[in-house]
């Protein structure tokens, strides 16, 4: 029973750590630049999941005040991480836009998206 209780109180953190590891693998291990960007998106979303997970309360509902439910803070979940993550998602999308602009610029200069080819090309042109 102790093992089940420990699992029920920790499994979301475990899954989020697995997602972070998958995103880090995408950024480090993949050679295609677009795959690296997809890995960055996965990493980012796992961090957002961690924040929203920290905001939940047992017995709390959605943070929209309902007059029939009362005004006690224990009945609504914590709204502060939601605000931070709301702005974080929009900043993440504009970050993706700038990264895609850089990617198009790199493709226009080197005609490839593979980072080993780009490194070889740079070394060749500097000699």
């Amino acid at each position, binding site marked *: 029973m102790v093992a089940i209780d420990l699992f029920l109180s920790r499994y979301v953190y475990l899954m989020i750590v697995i997602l972070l590891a998958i995103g880090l693998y995408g950024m480090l291990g993949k050679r295609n630049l677009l795959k690296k960007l997809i890995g960055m998106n996965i990493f980012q979303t796992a961090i957002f999941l961690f924040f929203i997970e920290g905001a939940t309360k047992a017995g709390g509902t959605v943070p*929209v005040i309902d007059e029939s439910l009362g005004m006690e803070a224990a009945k609504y979940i914590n709204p502060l991480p939601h605000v931070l993550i709301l702005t974080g998602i929009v900043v993440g999308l*504009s970050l993706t*836009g700038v990264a895609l*602009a850089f990617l198009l610029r790199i493709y*226009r200069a080197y005609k490839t998206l593979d980072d080993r080819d780009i490194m070889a090309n740079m070394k060749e042109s500097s000699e």
Partner: protein
Amino acid sequence: MIKQHYQSIIVQTICSLLIPFIQLFALYVIFHGHYGPGGGFQGGVLLAVSIILQRLYLGTKIAHPKFPPKLTMAFAAVGLLIYGLAGIIPMAYGASFLDYGSLPLFWVHDAELRALGILIVEIGIGLGVFGTLVLIFDNLVGERW
């Protein structure tokens, strides 16, 4: 890449019917943000989706005169300006920065004035997000016009 319009009458009819409803829903989301899920970010994104859908199915040759790409930067700047003015105008009346309680609208009172200030700021955020997203889309597509 998307210079010509899409060659299917079903897609054209459905998209042209869908776009006004997307824009209406975006306005509803912005103005109903006080009482339910929604607000400036979501409404701005939905407005940007409607313009991007129009560019995708009509092609840039027809869709660019309908909403010129030069206007997007102006929309983003005007949104940011609305937000900045909502912050600076209370300073002229002796309050601190972004204190909506002393905006110069004398026919509404304390808490309602703050709600009105939140609405003004949400409209600014919506215009800013809308302009910026359409701007990014135009610049990414615009390589092979």
